[in-house]
């Protein structure tokens, strides 16, 4: 018998698998496909203070072993998330959910964080300072250690829930940003968000996405994500949620060996709606194959 349980910021998860924000909506489109309580948790769509319509289309471009998205944080706004989405989530998911907090100003992160942190269903806040698809915000906080620390410190003041900061990979030195967040009071770090990329439409000869660039995700980014998780693990004491291209039980184990306590699965959900339960089902056999009996014990094992 293998043990899939891990403890993330004091919360015990039945397994380390968490669908990543933006690839799982508020769970409703998956709830009819399988029992979501099989998941460790899930992280819902990045939520801002006001509702947002997001970017014009096309918002999606295909890449080799991955995709670009430029959704632009379309979401119903924090008030509707609390009044409509959380009660609906309660109908199919009985575990603590991760709230992905997004924003354009520190005051917005604080307000959204305060509101979502106060909800009983919310197990932790995942503060997204790394969205590359919105102007004047998002990623700007994640690419500067000082700004990242400010957001962290400000949201820290308004919640006692586990505070997890989601880092951008579009930086020279992710360790610097990670340390700044830890020092400012973060309880954990999520990494990585998408890599800034683009495609050009050969027919129009112009950028395919309306604001030129988008965020690259999928298996293509896995080696970069793994490297960053490994580097950050050596620099901080708080737990890490590793993500970026994870598509199989083997990828999960690599991420955990690099230093991830839990692992998010993003784009894989989009091309295979059953990706998460399939990974959970495959874990025991793959663990067996590599002589692993307890997942919690392999965290950071590659160091």
């Amino acid at each position: 018998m293998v043990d899939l349980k891990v403890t993330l910021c004091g919360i015990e998860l039945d397994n380390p698998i968490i669908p990543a924000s933006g690839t799982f909506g508020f769970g409703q489109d998956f709830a009819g496909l399988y029992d979501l309580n099989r998941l460790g948790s899930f992280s819902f769509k990045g939520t801002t203070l006001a509702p947002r319509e997001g970017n014009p289309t096309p918002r999606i471009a295909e890449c080799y072993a991955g995709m670009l998205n430029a959704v632009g944080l379309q979401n119903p706004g924090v008030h509707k998330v609390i009044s409509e989405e959380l009660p609906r989530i309660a109908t199919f998911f009985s575990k603590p959910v991760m709230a992905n907090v997004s924003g354009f100003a520190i005051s917005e992160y604080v307000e959204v964080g305060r509101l979502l942190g106060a909800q009983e269903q919310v197990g932790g806040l995942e503060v997204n300072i790394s969205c590359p698809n919105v102007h004047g915000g998002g990623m700007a906080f994640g690419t500067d250690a000082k700004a990242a620390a400010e957001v962290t410190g400000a949201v820290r003041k308004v919640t006692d829930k586990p505070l997890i900061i989601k880092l951008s990979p579009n930086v020279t030195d992710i360790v610097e940003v990670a340390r700044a967040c830890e020092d400012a009071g973060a309880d954990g770090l999520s990494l990585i968000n998408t890599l800034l990329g683009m495609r050009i439409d050969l027919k129009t000869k112009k950028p395919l996405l309306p604001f030129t660039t988008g965020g690259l995700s999928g298996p293509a980014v896995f080696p970069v994500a793994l490297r960053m998780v490994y580097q950050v693990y050596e620099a901080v004491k708080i737990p890490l949620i590793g993500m970026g291209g994870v598509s199989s039980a083997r990828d999960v184990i690599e991420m955990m060996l690099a230093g991830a306590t839990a692992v998010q699965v993003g784009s894989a959900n989009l091309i295979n709606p059953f990706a998460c339960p399939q990974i959970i089902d495959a874990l025991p056999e793959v663990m067996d194959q590599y002589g692993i009996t307890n997942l919690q014990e392999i965290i950071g094992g590659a160091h």
Partner: protein
Amino acid sequence: MKQTTYVIAEHTKIARQTYFMRLSGDTSAFTQPGQFLNITLPGYYLRRPFSICDWRMGEADIIYKVLGEGTKDMTAFEAGMELDTLTGLGNGFDTSTSGESPLLIGGGVGVPPLLALCKELRAQGRQVKVALGFGSADEVFLADAFQALGAEVAVATMDGTAGIKGLVTDACDFKNCSQFYACGPTAMLKAICAVAPGPGQLSLEERMGCGFGACVGCTVFTTEGPLRVCKEGPVFKREVLGW
């Protein structure tokens, strides 16, 4: 929605750059004409969405046109090949509001989903008119099939090599039209709405990340707020689109 492994049962060229593919497998997730499926092509990350042209128990038909690299690769797929597919996607056309004499308007690869729709409307005893637009005579497909269903068919081609010379709107007869159903490029759909008098349903296309509602990649901005082409659509009432 269901994940199904289809086996290619038949694959034939039916017009310039246009192919018919009959897929064997579970079709129980399809409930409405105008729904679509989403196929994984070997070597590509994202799936490719195609409308079901027609389906019956154990078989679904699609018609596709070569547009880019993926559809070019598809032309080499042989009978017997297995395709990982998500089925029963989208809402499909609503036939309950069709009225007595609906008009079906299709342009290019927007034509296929109208076939199953036509079949259903005819089964309900409606007088169906069909207007089809293509570039040229060698691109025309399905016109006979609509005729065989007892619909009154008008074809328009851009170069006049078949039917009327002009756009599909030139082949549309809105007289007595109780409801129109349209599928094709966005520009065509907007042109139709500019001239069409009554109620109508429009099937939209958008680049998709997932095809089942998870990524909000395929949003269309409507009078009811942002909606997902893959989930609340692909078929929208014209008043919802505000077109």
